[in-house]
């Protein structure tokens, strides 16, 4: 008998423990819990908390910066959906040299694809002109903005803007449906069209492996 056991108040409190009738967790539930927790790999979470804590002011400033760049780059831009993906770079002489303003690459979703999807291979993916790992920072009027963590191929910009896929396109071609805050791997062809059929999608270890293999050389 411990000291506590001799303590009347302790025993009375302990006996009133509301969890005393709680049955043990079912093993399937525990497995699911752990799977869910660990599916957020450390990298993603660091990014997640990094942006979650930002004040609305930070976002406002960021949004203003993006708006400025889009406005400044308007002359350099090709129309959306043109033959080349448009890259707007701020004119270094025109902007404040101390401000590192993000650059934007624009990609489009393909029109509903004719033909069938093939199993994604590293070799096919390796032909992509653009490929990056990025996090969705905003979705506005069907245009998704991603902040690029890493370019595997093609681009150099800080941000990418891409059309949100329709549910139909997603059903037909597995075109990714972007979600705010989500981490995605996205590949695009020479003409700035997103590669669908499983080449682009939410970040998973498998897809990341495929990207690593495809762009290893």
């Amino acid at each position, binding site marked *: 008998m411990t000291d*506590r056991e001799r303590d009347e*108040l*302790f025993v*009375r*409190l*302990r*006996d*009133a*423990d*509301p*969890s*005393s*009738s*709680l049955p*043990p*967790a079912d093993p399937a539930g*525990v497995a699911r*819990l*752990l799977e*869910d*927790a*660990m599916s*957020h*790999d*450390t990298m993603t*979470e*660091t990014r997640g*908390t990094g942006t979650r804590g930002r004040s609305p002011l930070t976002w406002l400033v960021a949004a203003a910066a993006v708006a400025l760049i889009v406005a400044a780059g308007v002359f350099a831009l090709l129309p959306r959906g043109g033959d080349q993906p448009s890259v707007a770079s701020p004119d270094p002489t025109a902007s404040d040299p101390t401000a590192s303003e993000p650059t934007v690459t624009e990609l489009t979703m393909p029109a509903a694809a004719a033909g069938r999807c093939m199993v994604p291979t590293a070799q096919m993916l390796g032909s992509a002109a653009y490929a990056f790992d990025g996090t969705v920072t905003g979705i506005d009027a069907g245009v998704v903005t991603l902040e690029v963590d890493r370019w595997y191929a093609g681009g150099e910009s800080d941000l990418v803007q891409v059309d949100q896929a329709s549910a139909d396109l997603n059903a037909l071609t597995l075109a990714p449906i972007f979600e705010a805050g989500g981490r995605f791997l996205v590949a695009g062809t020479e003409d700035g069209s997103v590669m669908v059929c499983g080449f682009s999608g939410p970040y998973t270890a498998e897809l990341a492996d495929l990207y690593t293999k495809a762009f290893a050389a």
Partner: protein
Amino acid sequence: MGTDEHPNIRRARFEELARAELIEPLRRFLTRRTDPATADDVLSETLLVCWRRFDELPDDAPLPWAYGVARNCLANARRSRHRQERLAARVAAVAAPQEDPDPAGSRDVVLHEALGRLREDEAELLRLWAWEQLTPAEIATVLDVTPNAVSIRLLRAREKLKAEIGKFEAGAGHEQSEGGTR
């Protein structure tokens, strides 16, 4: 812990720790403090934070640290629920804030009443002491205060709880004797 540890080994290590030492006590911790649906949500949030901050988990005594995480996650859940309720109340003009359901499985009504009359921080100290059965040093980890402060406050909280129980029982006795004279 080295950050160059292989991810699979790291996962296995976390899984083993979570299964053996964290999940069951955390479930109980949350069951004691909130409704089942919130407890489920907060448990997964807590595990996520523990996984994310695995390197900070103390090797020798991870549980009090994890209780501290659960406490913060629960506080966040309550705050956001209050926000949602306020919003819902404004929109629907029907304010029906849900009370935390009565702690289930306990028949000691006097004790729960008395506990409810203490300040929240005092009640929490007593819960950590008697339900989680932590030592003052462990409670100090959960609450992020010094063990010394815990010991002193715990002593005070115990006295207050005893006094509250005394008031209730005296009141009950009084009513009973009144009833008896009629």
